[in-house]
């Protein structure tokens, strides 16, 4: 069985981003970029399936600028076998990403696609579900446990009220939540080996997919900031403030 894992290059989760003063977007110059943390979890899950003898090959794919090669090399160093980079200049929306991934899935024939549940830049949480729709496959989103059993997968999902267990027919789409696993760090020898693993470059045109944006971004602005608060010296003072100043506690 082949497993496909899409990975996205995003601003590192530790970076506090800055909005450009002219409202045209977020300043990404000289900012540390990394693999989307949820995608790392997805890569880890696929590699574990391979290590458990349940998958033969792990193919990673990224849609992004030339530098997304580094993201793919990271996934290869973790243990993926082969990489595909679909080069684009501008940001591509989830719907177009899903269309490109559908084309890749049609060409590669995976039984399972594991994605991160959301990217921490646009926070859209759409791509996996959209890909599943376009392929006409089953979908198991927000997964915290995945067990393959024959031509089915039993997936535990993190839902608003707790956990939900569902069974999906393969081929399937799984999107990873935070607690699916803890991704490994690539060892130095594996980072060296990853440099020799195959990385193929493509363009959206190779797949005949139009990636024009459907949403027009009119403005990007800073969120409202909170007024600086005060420190209180004791529990008693805190309660007094909450009752008499903020008015959020009665009694």
């Amino acid at each position, binding site marked *: 069985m082949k497993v496909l894992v899409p990975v996205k290059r995003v601003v590192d989760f530790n970076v506090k981003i800055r909005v450009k003063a002219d409202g045209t977007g977020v300043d990404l110059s000289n900012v540390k970029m990394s693999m989307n943390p949820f995608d790392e979890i997805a890569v880890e899950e696929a590699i574990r399936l391979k290590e458990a003898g349940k998958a033969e090959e792990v193919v990673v794919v990224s849609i992004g600028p030339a530098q997304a090669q580094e993201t793919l090399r990271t996934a290869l160093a973790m243990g993926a076998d082969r990489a595909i980079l679909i080069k684009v200049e501008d940001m591509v929306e989830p719907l177009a990403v899903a269309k490109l991934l559908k084309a890749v899935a049609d060409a590669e024939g995976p039984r399972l696609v594991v994605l991160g549940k959301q990217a921490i830049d646009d926070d859209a949480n759409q791509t996996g579900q959209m890909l*599943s729709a376009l392929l006409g496959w089953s979908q198991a989103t927000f997964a915290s446990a995945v067990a393959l059993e024959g031509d089915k997968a039993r997936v535990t999902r993190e839902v*608003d009220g707790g956990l939900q267990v*569902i069974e999906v027919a393969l081929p399937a789409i799984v999107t990873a939540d935070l607690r699916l696993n803890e991704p490994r760090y690539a060892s130095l020898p594996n980072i060296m080996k990853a440099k020799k693993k195959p990385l193929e470059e493509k363009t959206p045109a190779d797949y005949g997919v139009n990636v024009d944006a459907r*949403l027009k971004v*009119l403005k990007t602005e800073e*969120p409202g900031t909170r007024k600086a608060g*005060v420190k209180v010296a004791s529990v008693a003072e805190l309660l007094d403030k909450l009752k008499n100043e903020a008015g*959020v506690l009665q009694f």
Partner: protein
Amino acid sequence: MAILLFAEHDNAALSDQTARTLTAARRIGGEIDILVAGKGAAAVAQAASAFQGVRKILLAEADALEHRLAEPAAALIVSLAGDYDTVIAPATTTGKNVLPRVAALLDVMQVSEIVEVVSADTFKRPIYAGNAIQTVQATDGKKVITVRTSGFEAAQAEGGSAPVETIGATADPRLSGFVENRLSESERPELASARIIVSGGRALGSEERFRQVILPVADKLGAAVGASRAAVDAGYAPNDWQVGQTGKVVAPELYVACGISGAIQHLAGMKDSKVIVAINKDEDAPIFQVADYGLVADIFDALPELERAL
């Protein structure tokens, strides 16, 4: 112009999130129909019919819709979508699961987690864990939208009498099946709509201490209980208590963060709270930068003292 609102419910009761999403739908404007998809959910449809300004309630009941799994729920919505310009749902785990599937089947780019309606096709939504707010205009013929409900107050379910129309479900694509729910049972208010939330972080150190120290304060205040990712990952609290970029986004009147450092991913879930209290023994903890009232103290002293004083 008509809007189809995909209701959030548990087959027994209509969720407050539906009422909040209705407020967003009213701001978009046009006739609003509410779709209740479920099984044995007639009471939910009845409850929804009490909203004012709703044209009708569509009730679709089938085994496959009982848990609103993505494939049958999306197929149902797509079969109805021809009559609507906008499909809207709260950004609950169900809404987030189902609506992108609908959007792709309709070849529409979804607008996720709007916090403000600027006009019928233009919306504000947070990106980068809420560190930037984007204003986007949707150019597709139809609009598919999820709503961050903390940004909208709940519409009152009273005074209306929208007719309930029973509709047939579409065939179950049989791609996935429900096995079981392991839901946290709790008498406490729900996080998403609570007036007060008391949250605990990694500092709690164990599940036992989380229960001993956080829960009594929450119960005295009639509050919902939240947690940081670190506390959930360590097993001190269940996953559905997680507040943050990738957990629940809340905006209560009072949020009390106990032993939580204030990472951007946590702030993303609570910084729109009306009043924020932080209790942390590190006076430089970033949480104090968003707190209205900060108490530099050990939570194991301060919280029992607070509980006794309430």
